[in-house]
């Protein structure tokens, strides 16, 4: 009907994706096997960058911090979000109880870190109001926990909202039946409600898993990974090794590591979800 002409419709999409996403991806994978400073052409270095990964104290710190971010995100914004959702979804005026948690979601990106900086800084509001003298953003790993608290403040609302939507869409009958059988409180939740909302939980947790592994913005704006390098995450380390230390080869290796970890975590998570249902 149109012959070759129809490739004109798919060409813009395919070209953009191939040139700006696939090619850089492959190129980074190649660069991770080279020594490269961005000025001289890359020199083949085999697995030297990856060997260095295992021998780098800063990378160990950022791996630990990334792990804190992943586990902390599961417990705080996601876990507390579930708690608030379960407490409020079926009471009168429940939506009003959730308003305080939704307000912070209006802040976005760097704006969030921007407003917390004067609170957490050394002579900041938190110290003065609480009458203490805590260096919230100085000591590791306390500074990562402080940033996690900020993250929780902002993210709880949206997680909670997703859970509420899920809770309100599960069928009434099994819950009524369990109530008649005498189940209530924790047992009702654990054995009836929780299994019913499982598909939704899988999505919320999966999204949180992937995004927490790539935590960058909030750390970059609040501490730039410091002081020293003690609050870096893997994504921050990648950026600093590359664009601050100009070690493009090593930075690429960190990017590959991050990609492999993210891919592996998603794969294991998805497999567990599939076998469990």
């Amino acid at each position, binding site marked *: 009907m149109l012959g070759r002409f*129809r*490739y004109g*419709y*798919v060409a*813009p*999409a*395919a070209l*953009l*994706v191939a*040139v*700006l*996403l*696939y090619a*850089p991806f492959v*190129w*980074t*994978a190649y660069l991770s096997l080279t020594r490269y400073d961005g000025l001289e052409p890359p020199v083949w270095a085999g697995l030297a960058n990856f060997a260095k990964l295992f021998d780098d104290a800063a990378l160990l710190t950022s791996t630990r911090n990334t792990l804190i971010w992943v586990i902390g995100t599961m417990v705080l914004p996601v876990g507390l979000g579930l708690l*608030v959702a379960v*407490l*409020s979804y079926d*009471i009168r005026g429940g939506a009003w*109880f959730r308003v*305080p948690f939704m*307000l*912070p979601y209006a*802040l*976005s*990106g*760097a*704006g*969030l870190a*921007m*407003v917390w900086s*004067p*609170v957490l*800084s050394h*002579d*900041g*509001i938190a110290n003065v*109001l609480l009458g203490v003298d805590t260096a919230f953003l100085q000591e590791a790993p306390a500074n990562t926990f402080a940033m996690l608290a900020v993250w929780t*403040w902002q993210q*709880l609302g949206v997680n909670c909202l997703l859970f509420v939507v899920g809770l309100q869409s599960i069928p009434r009958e099994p819950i009524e039946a369990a109530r008649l059988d005498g189940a209530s409180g924790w047992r009702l939740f654990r054995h009836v409600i929780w299994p019913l909302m499982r598909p939704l939980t899988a999505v919320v947790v999966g999204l949180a898993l992937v995004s927490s592994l*790539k935590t*960058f*913005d909030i750390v*970059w*704006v*609040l501490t730039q990974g410091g002081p020293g390098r003690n609050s870096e995450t893997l*994504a921050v380390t*990648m*950026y600093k090794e*590359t*664009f601050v230390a100009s070690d*493009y080869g090593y930075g*690429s290796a960190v*990017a*590959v590591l*991050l*990609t492999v970890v*993210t891919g592996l975590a998603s794969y294991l998570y998805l497999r567990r979800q599939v076998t469990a249902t």
Partner: protein
Amino acid sequence: MIRRAVLVLLGLVWLGPTYLLLVNAARPASGYDPASAWIPSGDFALLENFGRAVEGANLGGSLASTALYSVVSPLLGVLIGALAGYVIVVLRLRHGFWWFLLIFGGTVFPSQMLLVPLFVGYSDAGLYDSRLGLILIYTAINVPLAAFVLRNFYSGIAFSIFEAARMDGASTFRVFWRIYLPMSLPALAAVFILEFTFIWNDLIFGLTLTQTEDVRPVMTAIAGLMTDVYAGTPVPVGLAAGLVVSLPTVVLFLATQRLFARGLSLGSVQ
């Protein structure tokens, strides 16, 4: 009763920082003192503070550029994605599914895997620190999602519509432009909103690919302002800046909530 008590208690903890933020962002820049941060000043200097931030950090050009990126790139992205979805589903492109996989596969790459080659490549091609360069990468990032949603949307439309239009003598492109594109408006809008938000909030591409104040996206510019919070930007000015630059995404989302929900459900169910 216990449930309400827990909710109220947690809610108060959450409201504390929100209150501090609002009160102090509206405080005249000179009247800030951490010790009395919780007492409202009685003035409303939010816009004045924001004005000072815009002036002091030269955010004007940056805001205009960010608006350009956040509108143009998603528009191009949804259009290009819709074209791909149309040719794959409606024109039944040969090996269409593989083309789709190729395009959709673009979503899996973490941005960290793209930064070095984009930085080096853009420098060589003269795209570094240019608006065109940012529009290109933002558009490319939008395309996979747009193609995904629009492909789903078009598979839900009866093929007889296409046949009837062709029978009446419309060219395949005309059928796309006059029939399929308008029909998919809710889906296009949903993707547009998601992508607008993503681009407006982007920090890392702006950080890597730009340098001058006028080209830098606003979140990157704000992040630069941050280090100045210690170096003398008055706290109310910083707070007002953080608050106001967050507003466009909120306003867009609230204004289009219905359309957004409708577009997404149309895109996923069919």
